[in-house]
């Protein structure tokens, strides 16, 4: 262990995985609650395009990916407000076009294959100090924002119209959630790669959802699962000489399947209703 902590790359990786493991599952919960699964695919692809552009022009690919993710998030949030328009078609176009353009850039800009592969696979051990610090700061801000705005976030996740009609600044909160999701996806790309960005967000959130708790409980379970996934995956990768991202995903998948199976068997429900609390058929 001491040997590992003596290597700065390992320390940066562990710090980023710990921070993202604790914070990013909240983004997965937001994605699931707001049914943003197709939208986050589009964000991933635009992030990839942003990173490709970054590599081409010599800008930090993580910064470029985050910029692409935030820009696409803003557009998605705008589009989702036009509820009469189905977002499926335009999102599909954005996804394929972004990927196509990214590949054209890789080819024409003569980007080294390993750099391109790093974008797809991620390489947490290649994090720079700035990237690690950025990830930790983003994770800390996310945790603080969720704690401070918890009741408003819950209201918006439950029903945006109701939240707005009750006098909450629901639109601003919704945009904040979307931008946080996109920022997280942009940052997670460097950790797990574009193809496995769900590892940091969706998998722990899915496992937490299987616990069938209210939002607060789901967020706490998500943080616990995220931490176990990231650190467990990191340990597995060291023990079996595996790439980190796939190892993290394997641990995450085991957690999702395990919690799902246990949830089915035991219910994972809130405690059963005591007979004395059962509601009479005619309450009023």
């Amino acid at each position, binding site marked *: 262990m001491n040997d590992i902590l003596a290597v700065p790359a390992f320390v940066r990786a562990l710090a980023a995985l710990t921070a993202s493991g604790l914070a990013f599952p909240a983004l997965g919960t937001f994605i699931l609650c707001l049914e943003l699964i197709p939208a986050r695919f589009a964000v991933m692809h635009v992030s990839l395009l942003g990173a490709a552009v970054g590599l081409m022009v010599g800008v930090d690919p993580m910064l470029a990916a985050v910029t692409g993710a935030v820009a696409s998030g803003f557009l998605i949030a705008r589009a989702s407000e036009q509820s009469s328009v189905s977002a499926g078609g335009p999102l599909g176009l954005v996804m394929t076009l972004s990927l196509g353009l990214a590949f054209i850039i890789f080819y024409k800009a003569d980007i080294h294959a390993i750099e391109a592969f790093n974008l797809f696979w991620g390489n947490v051990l290649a994090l720079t100090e700035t990237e690690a610090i950025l990830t930790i700061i983003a994770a800390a801000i996310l945790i603080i924002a969720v704690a401070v705005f918890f*009741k408003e976030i819950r209201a918006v996740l439950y*029903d945006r119209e109701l939240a707005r009609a*009750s*006098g909450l600044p629901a639109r601003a909160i919704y945009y904040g959630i979307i931008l946080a999701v996109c920022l997280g996806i942009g940052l997670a790309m460097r950790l797990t790669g574009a193809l496995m960005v769900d590892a940091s967000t969706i998998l722990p959130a899915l496992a937490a959802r299987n616990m069938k708790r209210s939002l607060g409980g789901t967020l706490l379970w998500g943080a616990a699962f995220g931490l176990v996934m990231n650190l467990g995956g990191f340990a597995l990768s060291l023990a079996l000489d595996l790439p980190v991202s796939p190892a993290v995903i394997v641990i995450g998948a085991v957690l999702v399947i395990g919690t799902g199976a246990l949830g089915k068997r035991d219910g994972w429900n809130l405690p059963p209703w005591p007979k004395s609390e059962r509601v009479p058929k005619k309450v009023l």
Partner: protein
Amino acid sequence: MFAVPAIEAVDLTLAYGSRTVVSGVNLRFGADAGVIGLAGPNGSGKSTFFKACLGLVTPKAGVVRVFGECESSRLFRDALRMVGWAPQQRAPGTLRMTVRELVSLGRCAKAGLFRPLTAGDRAAVEEAMETAGIADLSKRPTQELSGGQLQRANIARALAAKPRLLLLDEPTTHLDRESRRSVIILLEKLASGGRVAMAVVSHDPEALALCGRYLAFADGGVKEATREELEIE
């Protein structure tokens, strides 16, 4: 009482895209108006009118004000905090939540940004659940409620803000007989209490029978109507 009307519409036209739903609406009622029934066929603009009042639908023409404030006003959100809205019943959604948590959503805006719910807020939540007859369901997940229980929880959520005006949209639709009855009893209780004015959109004669004044939505317009004209038994 409030000098400004709770709801005031002036030459209001509402539309979805190119399809005008209702036009030339001029009406006003105060927070002391008792219970007002909004009747009319499906698609005649009753629910859209509520949404326009709440700033969820932007008028194509004219203006609608809630406690003197229109959607573009800086104080509109403050005005909304005096209104409770229970929309047409919708599924509880993917977010798991207990009844108490659902009802406490109604208190969020009153409590203010950044601020957790105070003891006073929590007391208002408990009172709303008591009024709606769902206090003993407070720990139950909303996904496990019957239609009538969920509807009463939604009305309790609207009541938790201690509104001056309650907008109820089809409160008894899609409910079985027993659930419908429990909601009607709740509406009777609220109507007789007289602490909150109510506007009720309904096709249910029993719900409309609670009203003292009627607005008939038909043929793209709105007019005052009597019980006899609406054929309410």
